[in-house]
C-alpha cells in the first residue's frame, strides 16, 4: 500500500530521474529531514550529541567517502584513517595559522587538501588492482600517521604531540571548543552530512558516477567505450578523499576537540570505515549512513543495556559487546550479503505490497 507508483504521473525527464520518484518516499524524506533539523536540536543534550549523533554523522561522512571509492569505483582503500588525519591536521594548521578564517572554510579547505593528498596516493591505482591496491593504500595509512607524529610543525611544537582545537564560531555561536552547545555541534555536522550526501547522490547518478561504475564493473570494457581510467580513478580518489578529509576535520574539531595521530587515526579506523561500508551496502548513500549508525551505535547500545540496565560488571559487558557485535556482523552478512541498504530495499518492497501480498 505504501510506496505505490499508482497515480504517479511523470510528464518530463527531470521527473523521471529524480532521487525519490515515489511521492510517499519524498514526503517521508522531507519529514525525516524536518525532524532532524527542527525537532532534534530542541531536545538534544550533551550525551546525545557527543556520544550518539555527532559520531554517527561524522563517521557517515567518512563512510560516504569510502563508498564513493570502493562502492562506486571499485578501488579498495585501507588508507581512510590516514586521510582523516590529513583532514584533522590540515584543519588544525588552518585554524591556528588563520584565526580569523571561518571554521566552515577551514573544514572545506582541509577537505580540499586531503583531496590533493588522495590524488597522490591514488596514482598507484592506475597500475595495480584489488588486494595489491589495498596494500598500496595501507602504505598511505602508515606513512601519514608517521608523518604527523614525526614533524613537530604539524602539531605546532606542543610538548605531547596532541593537537587541541581553539574555539571558533559560526554566526556568533561557538561550534568548536568546550563551550559549544550540543545543538550547535549537532547542526554543523548535520549540515555537512546533508550537503555531502546531496553532492554524493548527484555525482553518482550523473556522467561522473556512471564512469566510476563502468570502471568498477570492468575497467577494460570501460576504456573501450571511452571512459578515461586515469581521469575516472583519480576523480574518485579526489572526491572520496575530500569527503574523508572533511570527516577527519569534523572528527577533530567538533567531535573530540583534541586528538593524537596514532591513537585517533590508526589502522583500526580504516578498517572500521571499511566495515561500515560493507555492512551498510557497497554503492549506496543510505547504506553509508546505516553502516555508520550500526557500527557506532551498537556498542553504545549494548553498553547501556548490559551495564546500565542489567548491572553487569564492565569487563564482562565489554567483552560480551565484542562477541555480540561480531556475531551480528556475521549474521547480517550471511543473511544479507549486500548490506543494510539492500535489506531496506527488500523491506520497502514488502511494504509496497502490504497488506495484500498476493
Amino acid at each position, binding site marked *: 500500500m505504501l510506496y505505490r507508483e499508482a497515480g504517479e504521473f511523470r510528464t518530463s525527464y527531470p521527473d523521471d530521474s529524480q532521487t525519490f520518484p515515489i511521492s510517499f518516499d519524498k514526503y517521508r524524506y522531507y519529514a525525516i529531514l524536518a525532524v532532524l533539523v527542527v525537532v532534534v536540536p530542541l531536545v538534544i543534550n*550533551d*550525551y*546525545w550529541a*557527543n*556520544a*550518539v549523533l555527532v*559520531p554517527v554523522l561524522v563517521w557517515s561522512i567518512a563512510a560516504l567517502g569510502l563508498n564513493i571509492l570502493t562502492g562506486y569505483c571499485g578501488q579498495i582503500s585501507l588508507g581512510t584513517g590516514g586521510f582523516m588525519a590529513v583532514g584533522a591536521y590540515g584543519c588544525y594548521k588552518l585554524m*591556528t595559522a588563520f584565526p580569523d578564517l571561518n571554521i566552515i572554510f577551514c573544514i572545506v579547505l582541509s577537505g580540499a587538501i586531503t583531496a590533493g593528498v588522495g590524488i597522490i596516493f591514488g596514482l598507484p591505482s592506475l597500475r595495480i588492482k584489488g588486494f595489491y591496491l589495498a596494500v598500496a593504500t595501507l602504505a598511505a595509512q602508515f606513512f601519514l600517521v608517521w608523518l604527523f*607524529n614525526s614533524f613537530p610543525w604539524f602539531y*605546532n611544537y*606542543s*610538548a*605531547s*604531540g*596532541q593537537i*587541541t582545537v*581553539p*574555539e571558533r564560531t559560526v554566526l556568533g555561536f561557538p561550534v568548536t*571548543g*568546550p*563551550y559549544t552547545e550540543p545543538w550547535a555541534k549537532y547542526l554543523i555536522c548535520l549540515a555537512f552530512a546533508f550537503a555531502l550526501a546531496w553532492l554524493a547522490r548527484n555525482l553518482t547518478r550523473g556522467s561522473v558516477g556512471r564512469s566510476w561504475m563502468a570502471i568498477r564493473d570492468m575497467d577494460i570494457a570501460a576504456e573501450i567505450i571511452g571512459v578515461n581510467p586515469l581521469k575516472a580513478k583519480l576523480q574518485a580518489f579526489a572526491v572520496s578523499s575530500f569527503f574523508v578529509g572533511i570527516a577527519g576535520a569534523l572528527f577533530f574539531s567538533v567531535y*573530540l*576537540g*583534541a*586528538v*593524537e595521530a*596514532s*591513537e*585517533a587515526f*590508526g*589502522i583500526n579506523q580504516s578498517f572500521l570505515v571499511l566495515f561500515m561500508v560493507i555492512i551498510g551496502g557497497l554503492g549506496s548513500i543510505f547504506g553509508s549512513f546505516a553502516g555508520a549508525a550500526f557500527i557506532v*551505535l551498537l556498542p*553504545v*547500545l549494548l*553498553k*547501556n*543495556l548490559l*551495564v*546500565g*540496565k542489567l548491572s553487569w*560488571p*564492565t*569487563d564482562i*559487558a*565489554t*567483552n560480551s559487546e565484542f562477541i555480540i557485535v561480531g556475531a551480528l556482523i556475521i549474521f547480517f552478512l550471511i543473511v544479507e550479503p549486500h548490506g543494510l541498504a539492500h535489506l531496506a530495499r527488500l523491506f520497502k518492497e514488502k511494504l509496497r505490497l502490504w497488506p495484500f501480498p498476493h
Partner: protein
Amino acid sequence: MKLKATAAALICALAAPVAHADLVIPWLGYRTGPFSPGGIPTGDGFHDYMTLLNERDGGIGGVRVQVIDCETAYNTQKGVECYESTKGQGSLVYQPLSTGITYQLIPKGTAEGIPILSSGYGRTAAANGRYFPWVFNFPAHYWDGASIAIKHILDLNGGDIAGKKVTLVHLNAAYGREPIPTLEELAKIHGFEVDFVPIDFASSQEQKSQWLDIRRKKPDYILMWGWGIMNAVAVQEAANIRFPLENFIGIWWSGSENDVLPAGERAHGYKALALHRPGTDAPIFDDLQKHVFDKGLASGTGEHSGTVLYNRGAYGAMLTAEAIKTAQEIHGVADITPAMMRDGLENLVITEEKMAANGFPNFGPPFAVSCENHGGDGKAWIQQWDAHAKEWKLVSDLIQSDKELINRLVLEDAEKYAAENNIEPREC
C-alpha cells in the same frame, strides 16, 4: 506496534542512567584491551579502598561513596562517551587513567565545572593552577619524573654527568612524548647527550630493531616512558642486549610487577620511580583484609593486593577521599558538589600524620596543593626490582625534582596553551 516498542526500548537503552544521592566518583578505568594488565590492579585498589571506607566508616563524613565504573579500554572515544554518560549523575571528580583521555577532558571539565585529577599522568602544564583551575596532577607529574630520574643519575655519578649518553625509550603517544622538552632542557644544563627512541603502540611487542639501535649507540643510561606490554618487552630486550639493568630507569608507570616478572631472573636490578611504597606492610592492608576481602567484597580477585599498581589505586583513592574530607570541612556540608570538590582538591594538605591515620604511614611523600600549585611537591623514590625475592625495594630517599626549572617550563607551556585558547590566567 512492535516496531514502536522496539524503537522505544532502543531509545531507552541509548539514554544515560539517572542520578543518585551519594558521593559519586566515576572511575574511567580499563579491564579490557591491551592495557588491561595495568588497568585491572589500579582499578581494584581504588574500588577496594572506597569499599573499605563504606564498610568501616559508613562512607566519608557519613555519606556513602558510590564509584561508577565505566570501561574505556584506554580508548579516547569511549572515554568521551563515559564522561558524557556519567557527568549527569553528580560526578565529583574525573580520574581518566589515560593521558589521551585527560587531554580530552581538560577543556570539557573546565567548561562544565567538574575537576579532573590525573595523579602522575595527564597534561604536565596543568600543574599550574592559575591556567588550569579545574585540573590537578599531584603528587608529581611527568616532568618531575624526568628531573628526578636525572637527579638519581647525578647522585650515582657524584654530580657530574657531562658527556654521558642518556636514551629515552618512550611510547610514541602523548604520554611518552611528555618528558622530551624537560630532558632536552636538562641535557643543556648538565651537559649530557640525550636521544629518543619512540616505540609505536602497534609495535610494542616487537622492539628488536629499536634495541639493536640502542645497542649500537651504547648509552650509559636508559630512561623509559612505557605502559602496557611495552614495558615487559623492553625490560626483556634490555636484558637480551646485556644492558646493565641498574642503569635502566622507568617512570612510575613502567615499574610494576607486570613489567619485570616475564623477564624472570634477568630483570634483576631494573629500577623505576616510585610515587608510593610497594608491598603490603602498611596497616591499611589489615583493614582491607578484614572489611573487604574477608567479606567477599573485593573488586577483583584480591590477588593483586600489595602490587605496585594496586597500591597506586588505593593511594589515589586515599588522596581522593582526603580531598573530599577537606571539601566537607571547608564548606561544612557532607554532600558536596563538584565545585566544592575543586576547593577540597586545591586546599588538600597531605601530612605524615594524615597518612598514618588512614593506615598509610610513610607511604607517599607529604605535600600541599595550593591555588597556584596543582602538581604537588614533585618528590619520588627510586625502587629496584629484586628478582630473587620477587619484590620491589626502595633504594633511595625521597628525591626532590628541580622545581625551579620545572616551574619555568610548566609556565611556558601553560602560557602557550592559554594563548592558543584565549584563556586569562586567574590571580592567586
